[in-house]
């Protein structure tokens, strides 16, 4: 049985220590906040100028001036702070965020990250803060489904999509398990219960050894 999205998010949360400053991307990464183990405290950063971001706002809590980078209304945690966009990215680029968790189109076995555009020229490109986070956060985690909808493995020998940043990905959390890019291959850190390692290797184009 592969992991569902909640299980992937929970597995990421296990690996983020107490007291970490964390930026969570859209999708599975956002769900990490809901699966932090008891007794552990993470401080969430959002690119648009806030530390101490809380959960999504309920209807009666919405403040039109308080959104996260995914444009969702959120609430403040005690100890929150606001700052402008250059200071927000100074936190990112300066190495002051311990972890960021992002989605990806492709991850190379050498840790290359491709998550801002594919080879589909019909899609308008947009990069947002992905490149800054990829080079700036001290630990870059990717959370995604291992295979694309058409069944192609997204951990690849060499990224064919345009790079977000070279060699930045430390771990990849997927429905099939947890992986670590090591350069010439990808280490299998952990597999979801009942997942077939032989099938994984067969579908992985050689990256899993």
């Amino acid at each position, binding site marked *: 049985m592969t992991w569902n999205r909640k299980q992937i998010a929970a597995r990421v949360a296990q690996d983020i220590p107490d007291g970490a400053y964390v930026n969570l991307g859209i999708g599975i990464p956002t769900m990490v906040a809901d699966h932090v183990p008891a007794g552990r405290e993470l401080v969430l950063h959002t690119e648009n100028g806030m530390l101490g971001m809380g959960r999504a706002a309920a209807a009666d809590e919405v403040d039109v*001036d308080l959104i996260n980078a995914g444009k969702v209304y959120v609430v403040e945690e005690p100890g929150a702070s*606001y700052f*402008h966009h250059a200071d927000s990215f100074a936190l990112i680029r300066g190495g002051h965020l311990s972890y960021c968790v992002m989605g990806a189109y492709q991850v190379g076995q050498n840790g290359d990250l491709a998550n801002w555009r594919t080879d589909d020229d019909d899609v308008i490109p*947009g990069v947002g803060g992905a*490149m800054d986070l990829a080079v700036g956060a001290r630990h870059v985690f990717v959370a995604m489904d291992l295979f694309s909808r058409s069944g192609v493995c997204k951990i690849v020998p060499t990224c064919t999509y345009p*790079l977000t940043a070279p060699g930045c990905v430390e771990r990849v959390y997927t429905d099939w398990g947890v992986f670590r890019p090591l350069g010439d291959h990808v280490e299998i850190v952990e597999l979801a219960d009942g997942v077939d390692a032989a099938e994984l290797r067969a579908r992985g184009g050689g990256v899993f050894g």
Partner: protein
Amino acid sequence: MDKVMASAAAAVADVGSGSTVMVSGFGPPGQPEALVTALLESGATDLTIINNNAGAGGVAISALFAAKRVRKVVCSFPKAIESTIFDDLYRAGELELELVPQGTLAERIRAGSAGIPAFYTPTGYGTQLAEGKETMVIDGRPCVLERALRADVALIRAHRADPSGNLVYRKTARNFGPIMAGAATTTVAEVGGIVALGALDPEHVVTPGALVHRIVVGADTGPTTGAV
């Protein structure tokens, strides 16, 4: 010193066609709606817009795109879920796009206001967005040289102003306002209200008045927390 102007129209009346215009905002918070609406109504065209989202989240700025007043956009994320205006113009070849990583965009704007003509950053190195740019390996880390961004006019949104142009912001509506202030020849601030000179605590002023040239009162978005 009183920088408050009678109307948004008066505040942008001298923004000519061909101008480069910074517009604050990230999603709806921080969009200077009254100023951008006035810019649209002024008829100015052939504009270069520097804005993180190329109009996503701002009603007025989307209208500016729809009216084909924009020649070029400098932004990090032009995609808007709620609108295809940008996409249609871009595909039709009617819009030039300079795509910049969001942190590099913010730092280039900050550099424009701070008198730093260029800086090196590791962001973007080894990617399409750094093609053709100068690079240097600094302390073992490859970096890209990025230039300051400046504009003819910066249209920003703040929460409160005093008449001298001191500004405070509200929550995540702060975003690009404080760094666009001073990054243009003329900085115009749209605010939710004006307070008396001396009413803002000097410790809490985010943008000092020296960076703001004109003030216009727009819609108010919510209450002030703490002292004004």
